[in-house]
């Protein structure tokens, strides 16, 4: 995590730098169906982290040779808009973005019933509008909503959150400052309804006990986010119905 100089104290009187308790999520907002053209879309915010996800598909695959005879191919791109970060991000795809596109795809694959749509593609675009920690897990949470909004059959929603260790304390939903100066950052995504962990990364140092504790905290947080997802979809469904 680097940047030792001027390292701020991250836990004061049991409270975190933004006033949260260790096991407290940031304020979460979810809006489904925000774009006209995309088959499904959602914007999700965890505090100042704000991510747009859009889904097209199942649709024809171009080039054709990429298609699979027994399932839809999932294509996924995670990107940070140039102005989403403190220092302007160059628009050229970074190695980080390439890796995250892969792990996010692998976090969503287990949930999508791609076997129902052979020879098609399902395209997932995740655009980070503003980055303040936890962008990949916020992106997964938004992508799951966009997939549902597109009417793509899923085994369960996928929700994600990053836990971490800061000033020796295991905390939920770390923000950018905690990520930068903390001892560990551990993004986790899961299908809460069926108990399946679909993304798990650790960037930092933990003992075995700390790891178990962090994983349990992440899964508790994910369950809360999952409830918010279901509510957001219900809201969309209700409002659409009302419009009719």
């Amino acid at each position, binding site marked *: 995590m680097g940047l030792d100089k001027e390292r701020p104290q991250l836990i004061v009187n049991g409270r975190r730098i933004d006033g949260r308790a260790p096991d407290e999520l940031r304020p979460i907002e979810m809006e489904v169906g925000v774009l006209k053209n995309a088959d499904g879309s959602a914007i999700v915010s965890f505090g100042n982290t704000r991510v747009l996800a859009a889904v097209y598909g199942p649709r024809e695959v171009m080039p054709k040779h990429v298609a699979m005879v027994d399932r839809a191919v999932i294509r996924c791109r995670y990107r940070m808009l140039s102005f989403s970060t*403190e220092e302007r991000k160059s628009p050229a795809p970074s190695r980080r973005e390439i890796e995250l596109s892969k792990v996010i795809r692998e976090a969503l694959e287990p949930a999508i019933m791609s076997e129902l749509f052979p020879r098609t593609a399902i395209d997932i*675009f995740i655009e980070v509008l*503003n980055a303040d920690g936890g962008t990949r897990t916020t992106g997964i949470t938004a992508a799951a909503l966009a997939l549902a909004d597109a009417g793509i059959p899923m085994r369960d929603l996928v929700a994600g959150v990053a836990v971490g260790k800061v000033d020796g304390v295991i905390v939920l939903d770390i923000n950018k400052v905690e990520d930068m100066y903390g001892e560990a950052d551990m993004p986790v995504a899961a299908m809460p309804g069926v108990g399946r962990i679909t993304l798990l990364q650790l960037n930092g140092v933990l003992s075995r006990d700390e790891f178990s504790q962090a994983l349990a905290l992440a899964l508790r947080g994910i369950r809360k986010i999952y409830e918010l997802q279901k509510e957001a979809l219900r809201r969309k469904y209700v409002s659409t119905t009302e419009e009719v």
Partner: protein
Amino acid sequence: MSITPEQPVVPKLKYNAILNVLSKGQRIDKRSVYSYRPITVKTNVIPNAEGSALVSVGSTQVIAGVKLEIGQPYADTPNEGVLIVNAEFLPAASPTFEPGPPDENAIELARVVDRSLREPKVIALDKLCIIPGKRVWIVWLDIYVMDHDGNLLDASMLAAMAALASARIPRIVSVDPNTGDVKVNRSVREDRLPINKLVCTVTIAKIGRYLIVDPNLEEEAIANAKLAVSISEDGLIVGMQKMGMGYFTEDEVKSAVGIAMNVAPKLIETLRKAVQS
């Protein structure tokens, strides 16, 4: 290589319907020929950007952000800041957009916006010098099209202008004129980015023999050509770009310019309200 683009398929019936209402001075979405769809401008939507705006024109959505960084001036303008404009059409915005670096349409859009800002000196670049000849503010203006329902240029110009006019400059903590070392505290933003005047573009599409403003996606699909006219708040023409595979007669060009000059003040007013709030 620029290549003839695939023409969107518009059913004959649709085409006739559009032309038919146009012949009565109307649009298929009930607008008059010289009016815009509803416009919304939300500023400061991106906390990490020094300035930002989310603009919708009908269902078209564009987001623009401004990042300010310390850098070197160009050799021929040693005492001026630098403006760099980029535009990208997000693949989320349309089933026909593909991921990848900006294509010729996005590049053209960015360059028209750039010229429309640069020529009338919209930004007071001369006030963005920190150490003459050595250090100036670099103004990165990035435009992303999020949802494409036609007339991307006018929406992009509104978003760009609103993002610039609402931007604030981070605090400079220290300047060492010898080494060129400049320390910035990004968490505190102070003065507004200095803006000399507001500018907008008005895009006129030619369908058959009719001229309309703010074409939506269906109208663009059957338009012969488009003419974008950039107009400043003091009523000057500050840029122009003919787009599309068709042509205009001299008279059509003059009519289009007249229409644009009539419509522009409303757009400027919308901008002014958005950035004052």
